[in-house]
């Protein structure tokens, strides 16, 4: 992993069109500002991981559950 030291107000660039600015540093909190193209999604990691896990779980929906939902709605 590349490690860079930055002060408050300083930034890094990733490729040509992503900019990460250190907005504020306070005790053990760092506030970051991110400029990225619209097509690129930016999320807090723990939320991204949770959605990933939810998606994996959704992709293994048991067939009897989907069958039950279908029967209910076809009535």
């Amino acid at each position: 992993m590349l490690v860079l030291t930055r002060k408050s107000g300083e930034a890094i660039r990733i490729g040509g069109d992503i900019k990460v600015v250190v907005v504020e540093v306070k005790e053990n909190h760092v506030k970051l500002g991110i400029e990225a193209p619209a097509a690129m999604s930016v999320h807090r990691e723990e939320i991204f991981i949770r959605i990933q896990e939810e998606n994996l779980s959704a992709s293994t929906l048991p067939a009897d559950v989907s069958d039950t939902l279908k029967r209910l709605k076809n009535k």
Partner: protein
Amino acid sequence: MNVARESTQEIVFETHRFGTLSIMEEKVISFAQGIPGFKNLRRFILIDHDSEGLFKWLQSIEDPLVAFLLTNPNVYKPEYSVPLRKNDLETLDVKDMKNLVSLVMVCFANGKVTLNLKGPVLFNSENMRALQCIIDRDDYQSHFVINI
């Protein structure tokens, strides 16, 4: 005849749930950003599950095994609405909000059927672009239990 064939291309692919499917290219939904956990999959199709169309399968064209059951969240939580971000609207190239459809994934956990209200899927029916939003709000649960 030839002209019609050139303008609408048919694609054939395998699926685990539905066997071999053959659909027109214009029915393909594209997730330019992928779906978290399935980042290599970009092309999907929606298939009705029940006769009322309340549940739909989002089936991957690229992986026969990957399909998500989706439903309209407002049937179960009427006040639910996706907070739309400018970036998402740009990604989907939304010209008319009427063409925007949001559906949520159905899960089964601990013996209950749940909806993931934190990760709705947005579709722009005008251009078949779609993305999964991530909503960071405590009142929208990722395991919203529905009674069926």
